[in-house]
């Protein structure tokens, strides 16, 4: 029992190896120079070659706070920040429902603070009553211990009146809160009528396929694990799943909506200020439920349009020999069985579309920030970083790995 509860059982050689060991294995078969190269891929990013990748890599990194956080806030937000006594800094963040950056999350946060104020008052009242009851009784305890007594009629009557008032009060408060809840709900839903852009998000174990729709079919395109949207433009998000139930949740923008096989759900998000936000799957979906995140980047309209144009283009052709070799390796190894790079013969849809992978903020569904070094670690041993994920350990030599890295890193 205890052994099973403890760390992963010591595994035979080859299993459970860490990525540096994976690179190390590759090293063994290659001249040391190549191994050095593999190492440089990490260090080129200003990172220490990690002993234990999952532990040392700052998964979300020192992510910059979205610009504008905490400033120019709406009155309710100021109130919110003032009211957040427990961990002021904790309220802010790129994945916080209390740091709203969109219309809906703002309304919800407002509603939440209202509920909190009312309910906290009630709680305080109960605690005070409890204290007084105990305090009163402490005086009465000095009364000689004796058998139970029969309550007096006037007290009973007073208490009964109190009970009535209490019940009516509870009902009234609950009714009021329900009313506010309805109002906010309706307000949030109304946003859907103004949606200008439609994105189709398909959840897969354990990543997000994102498709930007367009009436002209060849102006639609696919990406993965990132959503970019123009600031202030409501975006309709169509939610589908092909395996198990997932839930789409970007707390800074809106509450969550499930993605359920056999059903099509919809939600609308809007970002009122620029910034990068983090979304995460919120319904348990198996091994890597914990590492199924996505980046949401809100940007000015012009930037968004430019990004969109760049995404529409097929992958850029490799420019140097190293990348050309990388493309060759990519197209003749296991990579091509699962991934798409538009403009090449790689067009499988098992894994994320990699046409512009190097232009994304993160890797492996928000698990690692994008960098060539992290990419190296991810390809070298994905099972170390996301045990159970569908990305297999591919037996590439260090040289091949370098080439593939050069190629992928050029896919901006």
């Amino acid at each position, binding site marked *: *029992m205890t052994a*099973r*509860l403890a*760390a*992963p059982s010591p595994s035979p050689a080859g299993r459970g190896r860490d990525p540096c060991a994976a690179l190390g294995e590759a090293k063994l078969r290659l001249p040391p120079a190549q191994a050095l190269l593999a190492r440089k891929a990490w260090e080129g990013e200003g990172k220490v070659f990690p002993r234990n990748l*999952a532990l040392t890599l*700052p*998964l979300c990194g020192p992510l910059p706070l979205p610009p504008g956080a905490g400033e120019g806030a709406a009155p309710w937000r100021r109130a919110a920040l003032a009211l957040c006594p427990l*961990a002021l800094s904790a309220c802010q*963040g790129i*994945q916080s429902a209390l740091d709203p950056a969109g219309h809906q999350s703002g309304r919800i*946060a407002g509603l*939440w603070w209202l*509920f909190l104020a009312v*309910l906290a008052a*009630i*709680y305080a009242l*109960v*605690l005070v*009553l409890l204290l*007084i009851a*105990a305090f*009163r009784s402490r005086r009465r*305890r000095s*009364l000689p211990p*004796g*058998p*139970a*007594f*029969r*309550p007096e009629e006037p007290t009973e009557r007073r*208490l*009964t009146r109190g*009970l009535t008032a*209490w*019940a009516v009060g*509870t009902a009234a408060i*609950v009714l009021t*809160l329900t009313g506010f*809840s*309805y109002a906010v*709900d309706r307000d949030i*839903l109304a946003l859907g009528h103004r949606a200008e852009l439609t994105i189709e998000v398909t959840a897969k174990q354990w990543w997000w396929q994102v498709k930007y729709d367009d009436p002209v079919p060849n102006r639609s395109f696919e990406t993965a694990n990132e959503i970019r949207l123009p600031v202030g433009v409501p975006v309709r998000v169509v939610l589908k799943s092909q*395996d*198990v139930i997932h*839930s789409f*949740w970007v707390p800074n923008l809106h509450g*969550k909506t*499930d993605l*359920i096989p*056999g*059903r099509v759900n919809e939600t609308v998000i809007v970002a009122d200020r620029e910034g990068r936000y*983090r979304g995460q799957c*919120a319904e*348990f979906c*198996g091994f890597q*439920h*914990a590492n199924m995140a996505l980046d949401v980047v809100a940007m000015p309209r012009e930037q968004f349009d430019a990004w969109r144009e760049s995404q529409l283009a097929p992958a850029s052709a490799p420019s140097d020999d190293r990348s050309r070799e990388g493309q060759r390796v990519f197209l003749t190894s296991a990579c091509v069985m699962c991934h798409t790079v538009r403009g090449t013969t790689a067009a499988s849809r098992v894994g994320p579309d990699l046409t512009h992978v190097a232009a994304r903020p993160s890797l492996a569904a928000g*698990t690692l920030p994008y960098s060539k070094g992290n990419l190296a670690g991810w390809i070298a041993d994905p099972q170390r970083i996301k*045990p159970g994920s569908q990305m297999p350990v591919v037996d590439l030599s260090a040289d091949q790995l370098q080439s593939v890295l050069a190629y992928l890193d050029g896919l901006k």
Partner: protein
Amino acid sequence: MSPRDASPFIRRDGPALEEVETYARLERTWATPPGLWGWLSSVDHKQVGRRYIVTAFVFFLLAGLLALAMRMQLAGPEQTLLTPDRYNQIFTMHGTTMMFLFAVPVMEAFAIYLVPLMVGTRAIAFPRLNAFSYWVYLAGGVMLWVAFILNVGPDVGWFSYVPLAGPQFSPGKRTDFWAQMITFTEVAALAVAVEIIVTVFKQRAPGMSLNRIPLFVWGQLVTSFMVVFAMPAVMVSSSMLIMDRLIGTHFFNPAEGGDALLWQHLFWFFGHPEVYIIFLPATGFVSSILPTFARRPIFGYTALVLALVATGFLGFGLWVHHMFVTGLPHLGNSFYTAASMAIAVPSGIQIFCWLATLWDGRPRFATPLLFVIGFIVIFVLGGLSGIMLASVPIDSQVHDTYFVVAHFHYVLIGGAVFPLFGAVYYWFPKFTGRMLSERAGAWNFGLFFVGFNLAFFPMHILGLIGMPRRVYSYPAGLGWDDLNLLATAGATILAAGVLVFLGNVWHSLKYGLVADDNPWGAATLEWATTSPPPSFNFVHIPVVTGSNPLWEEPDGLPVVGGLRVDQRELLLTSVVDAEPEVREPSPEPSIWPLLSATAVTILFIGSIFTPWAVVWGSIPLAVGLIGWFWPKSAPDTPEPVID
């Protein structure tokens, strides 16, 4: 057990045998046979209840260990103490064990033990069914844990959402063990519910009209009705799941016309009432403990009963608030918001009545009352966060986050485990004849209370700042690290509280003060007999004249006579006014419930592997049931001896 004088509260009335003789004869008739055979064939509700309680607490401890393991894993970001596979099994086992193997059984266990005593009868209705239910429960729990130890533990959450729990995404037999465990425990729970309902309706002591039933019994009665209506839903759904997995039906296959959401509807139609199935008995504990220690009859008896019944009804009308984010129609969601909010009203009424009782009482701050006060502090907070969850917009943010984890631990630990610990301290003298240490009890409460709040309060904030549930790991840099560490520290303190409790129990079993029949000066009938009670509960069936009989008849209760002493016989009374109606025989000890339970176990476990087990397994089961129900000829006693 040596014959002892009956409780001084019981007044002899009418000619019969000498007291000592009656006692000895009754003992001969009702006692469980000695030895292993007797132990296995016992149908005494107190023995079965004790077994239930001990077993449930063992599962509580095991599930608590799992919780600690999870907290260790989550103490910091990016920990690798547990693999995701192991973590998933652990949180599934924790939830499953706590909900199905601890919370519901332990509440029913108290009912099994206490309800017959509180209503003044000699045995529970259908005692063999009762024994059967325990064996089935035990087999189900052991099966699940053995499976877990063999790495076949379920790993899809205690809710087992399809399709993740379906045949495609949950290969092997892990989920099948979970689904069959449901069937096991629900069979047991349904059996107990039927027994409680019948015991309460037909076996109350003369004079215990509906308005004099102790609130604990009311709570158990409402709970039992909820069990009867809620449990079949989950049994049906778990059977559908196992059929999908084993014989390829398509209940939950959206491609072939099934529906993944059907599971959620069925599960939460059970799952939400389940919370009240756990909570209502706990309110019964509170309503029993409070008047005793406030030394004042409970305030607002009628209001409390109505609140119980209202909760019982409303509890079935809010399952959809677990599904607000599944994309159901908004109008429907709004209805469930209203229903979920509405349940605050009866809960508020209960809280007020308890506060009022305390307010107007002369409380003695013994450990049970401490736990009740802790209950009020914690449960009210959990209830209030529940009001937040009832709001669709707020729920859309906090659903499936640590906020919800915090909420339901506040409700379930605060609302059920605190009263349960209070109840253990309260009734321990009755169960064992010994008192628990008050000093250790205070420590127990203190550690428990502090540890609990440290562990779970930060989770509210964690949820609000984005931490989802059921994650085996989380990235650093999102502001979750410190709060998680705090929660882990709290969990450790909580565990220390449990250790103190265990030590207290162990110590007092060995060295504890011997308890009086009624050490707390309580008012209900279980205190009218010895501690622990004799196998037949009462030498004479008491007659009840008010809702606090021991307080209202300080000189001893009136009794009725006329039941046979040479055979197991019960007095049945009318449903509303509890007027004596008939004498009814009660079954003798029997090994057949155990054999039938074994047959059921073979059938259930077999059907994890092959559907044919249902066919072949029904043969031993039929043998078991035939043996159980084999008609017995009426004993030939021309002149029955009566008490």
